[in-house]
């Protein structure tokens, strides 16, 4: 019996290790390719370890477009969206969770309804709207469409509802203003939820390709995913060492954060969808 158990356990490990290898090895291949020169990229059979490593590929990829601009735009877009989503989300969530007023539940229903409207339904009309307002190719066209999050508002409301009314009343009696109450008292208590949602939002918008692709046609506001995708359209031949080096600009920050905070991130993605 124990022999059979051991065999099952061993087999489980082998299968899991094989799947993990299939999932992770392509990233090693990406790294390896990004450090090769052109002859070794097209060498068959290929080699895993580039000798010597060509670190200059990263400089070449970085200089093949305004990548500093792309990176800054990506940061502005991602953080701009996050700050606005949290700000508006906390205000509304507090009202939904702790205040009583006529029409509250109907308003909340509207927010929930927005939960089922994906970006793919919104992009054509919003493109037309921003084009009409002359706002294509601006940060506004990247940030405003995501400035409120139905998911975020919903999750923060849930967390705020857990805060006991005694704490809220005590703070009110002490003369705390609404903003103090929300950002000094409610938010610290709801921290786990807010962190989970923030990780979710940052990963999503940092990687987002669809929206910036639609809203931008000039380098001034393009983001990293769009810039990296354009690497493939430029130049000719097997420039895979350059393209893989460029891909690292999008991948490396996310994977670095993932390695450090993987448990939080996995929990964030499970949590945000199971609520």
């Amino acid at each position: 019996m124990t022999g059979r158990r051991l065999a099952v356990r061993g087999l489980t490990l082998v299968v899991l290790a094989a799947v993990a290898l299939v999932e992770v090895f392509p990233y090693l291949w990406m790294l390896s390719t990004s450090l090769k020169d052109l002859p070794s990229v097209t060498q068959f059979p290929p080699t895993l370890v580039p000798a010597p490593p060509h670190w200059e590929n990263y400089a070449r990829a970085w200089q093949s477009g305004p990548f500093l601009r792309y990176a800054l735009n990506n940061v502005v877009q991602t953080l701009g969206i996050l700050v606005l989503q949290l700000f508006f989300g906390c205000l509304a969530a507090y009202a939904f969770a702790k205040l009583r007023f006529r029409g509250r539940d109907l308003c909340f229903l509207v927010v929930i309804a927005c939960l089922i409207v994906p970006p793919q339904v919104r992009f054509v009309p919003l493109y037309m709207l921003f084009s009409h307002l002359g706002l294509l190719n601006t940060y506004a066209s990247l940030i405003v469409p995501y400035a409120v999050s139905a998911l975020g508002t919903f999750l923060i409301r849930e967390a705020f509802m857990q805060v006991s009314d005694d704490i809220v009343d005590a703070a009110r009696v002490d003369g705390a203003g609404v903003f103090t109450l929300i950002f000094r008292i409610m938010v610290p208590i709801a921290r786990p939820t807010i962190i989970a949602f923030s990780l979710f939002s940052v990963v999503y918008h940092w990687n987002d390709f669809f929206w910036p692709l639609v809203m931008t046609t000039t380098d001034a506001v393009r983001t990293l995913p769009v810039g990296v995708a354009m690497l493939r359209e430029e130049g000719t031949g097997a420039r895979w060492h350059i393209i893989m080096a460029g891909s690292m600009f999008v991948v490396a920050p996310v994977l670095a954060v993932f390695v450090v905070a993987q448990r939080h991130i996995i929990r964030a993605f499970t949590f945000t969808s199971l609520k």
Partner: protein
Amino acid sequence: MTRRGERRRREAWIGWALVAPSLALFGLVYLYPVAYSAYVSLLEWDLMGPARWVGLANYRELWSAEFREVITNTAQYSIGVVVLSQALGLALAVLLNNRTRLGALFQASIFSSYVVSWVAVSLLWIWLLDPQYGLVAYLLSLVGLPSVNWLGDHRIALWSLVLVTVWKSVGYPMVIYLAGLQAIPGDVYEAAALDGADGWRRFRHITWPLLTPTTLFLMVTLTIASFQGFDIVKIMTQGGPVTATMIYVYYIYEQAFQYFKLGKASAAVVVFFTLILALTAAQWWLFRRRVHYAA
């Protein structure tokens, strides 16, 4: 009494003031687009010239052989992705369901792709699947198999996209199933062990039925997510070869931004949204029924 009424009024004012900015934005960037799409779907409009009222003509035009192919492609892609990633995700979750250090490492490795950009993943897989210099071609040659034109062969291309999507996103059903498995109380299994149920029977008669809510949840979520597939097509195949990988959102994008047929694109958006609404309604219905059964 008046003091209390005044306090109530004040509370209502604050409530509305706090909710108003969010509501205004939700109205502008969520509700208005839905309504405006419905309106534009009745027009013929290229954004340059004036719009012309055409009634339901866009919807009739939508019902073409081309559009039916888009539907077929999208259905194949979605079913492929949903079935494969769910089956694989469940298998992995069952194998991972005892907390060990090594297990946590495997789980993180498998999940990592889920947070990586679609752009990078798509570029990486074009390179891996390159028929001439790609790693996959090399691995096939090691076992004596011929190279496959993964993205250039119209019979295979869509399935290649399915495989890449499953590779990228299998971590998600895995962690959701793991959460489902961990919610099953241990004494259920102890009772089964006393009855002498072995591994497979335990899975078949205890685990699988108890995971039904998780399975339904994943089925709907993954279907909606796969309907929204775009990045991978835009980067890996641009809908080709010919129209073999033309899936729904890419079709909308092309109609709107390549051919500037905004009316037709909007009609496609309306149909798309209706499908998503139907799926969401189905989900609610299924879950309500489950609650009834449980009660």
